[in-house]
């Protein structure tokens, strides 16, 4: 059952990520990105990290891609049709990506995963508690970082004509 689901959502994620890369129309890329991230969220559930699945859907699918779609809609559609990249470039890039994927796969498969583990699988509660005790300072620094980003984005994105 789990294997079937893993296969299903794995194929969905991968197929849709190919869709992102090869769609001529940017809005279709954004659409495939949604499905791809949704599939990834399902995979997070399958590797027993439901909290990450929810965060993935809530933040990635529900907010980040919304921003992408907004920007696509704010830009005139005619400007989005791109010049086709040269065949040699595509071929070289394909070979490069393919070989890097193989190297990566080999590295992942040979990484020492068989280390002895102790204790229970982390639960939602232990993760949450460690976020506010063990990782309290990174967490607070992150909030300052977000504050900086809010200011920075506003400075970058405001309408210069009206401001």
């Amino acid at each position, binding site marked *: 059952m789990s294997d079937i689901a893993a296969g299903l959502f794995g194929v969905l994620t991968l197929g849709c990520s190919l869709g992102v890369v090869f769609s001529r129309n940017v809005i*279709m890329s954004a659409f495939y990105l949604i499905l791809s991230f949704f599939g990834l969220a399902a995979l997070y559930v399958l590797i027993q990290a439901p909290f990450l699945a*929810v965060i993935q859907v809530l933040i990635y*699918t*529900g907010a980040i891609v919304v921003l992408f779609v907004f920007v696509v*809609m704010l830009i005139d559609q005619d400007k989005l049709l791109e010049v086709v990249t040269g065949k040699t470039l595509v071929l070289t890039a394909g070979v490069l990506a393919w070989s890097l994927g193989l190297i990566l796969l080999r590295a992942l498969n040979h990484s020492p995963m068989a280390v002895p583990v102790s204790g229970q699988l982390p639960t939602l509660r232990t993760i949450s508690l460690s976020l506010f005790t063990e990782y309290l300072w990174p967490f607070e620094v992150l909030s300052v970082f977000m504050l900086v980003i809010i200011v920075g984005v506003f400075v970058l994105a405001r309408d210069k004509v009206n401001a």
Partner: protein
Amino acid sequence: MNTVDIAILVAKTLLFYLIVLHVVPIMVWVERRGAALIQDRPGPNRVGPFGLLQPVADFVKFIFKEDPIPTGANRGLFLVAPALILIPASLTLAVLPFGDKVKLFGREILLQVADLDIAILYVLAIGSLGIYGILFGGWASGNKFSLMGALRASSQVISYEIPLGLAAVGAVAVYGTFSLREIALAQDGLWFGWLPRWGIFLQPVGFWLFFIASFAETNRLPFDLPETEAELVAGYHTEYGSMKFGMFMMAEYMNLTTISGVMVTLFFGGWHLPFVADAMLLKWIGSQNLLGLVQVVIFLTKVAIFLCVFVWVRWTVPRFRFDQLMRITWGRLIPLGIVNLLVTAGVMLWLGGWK
């Protein structure tokens, strides 16, 4: 898991899905009759007694209509958009606790599609996917008013997601769990012998926030900016006809049902009768299975009351302007939600735990 388990699972899922699907035609009738009642006119009364079969007639008419795809439309996205809004609307009902549990075939069956330990987050996360139906629907129509409506609708929906989440956070902090089932279980019985143990008495501000934000989340008046007929033709679904338009309507009513269900569970005791503890009810009724049925009825009654409130508000309150709407959420609701959270945390700290 054997075949019986799987069969029970499938049957249960299908049953609850069908219950929520059947809210749609009932709500169509309630909405039209309610509007008529408030506006002092008869409303649909020709098809069946009290016009009760009107939704059926509507459905038949919808499905036999031509559904044109405009020339300027992006065909693929235009067709997918209604499904994109209907599927998340269907998925969110998975965590609604309709009742406690029943014993059938020697198994304990929870009266809930799935008892997830992240239920509240699940509702918020899946609910946030609904805006893609709006965005793509408006964009793919190839109509500038649709696109404008879509952008407005999605700005509104995303802005009100934050107060909705903050209101839910308050309730989660009080109960210490994400599971809607556990939250409902914690609301059994009375405080001081006379006050129902309902969430609204612990989180009155949280409830108010959730209530207001839920109007905006479901695009109902007074927050139905996306559909301002006078300015935007009909909003993001202008170009949709036939049952494709019907799907947008179905999704709206299903979202209403889910959000009412969440509200009932978080703030109004879920499946519990006020003033009567479950144990007492069980003694009167005598059978766990019958009690389960009664609980489902109680839960659905509470949801129905909220649905009626939604209809009532829709036909009595005028709509906000776009800037007012944004100012309400960013300037009022979000700060209020944060203050509510701080006060909740402070009071809990002061009382040294909630027991």
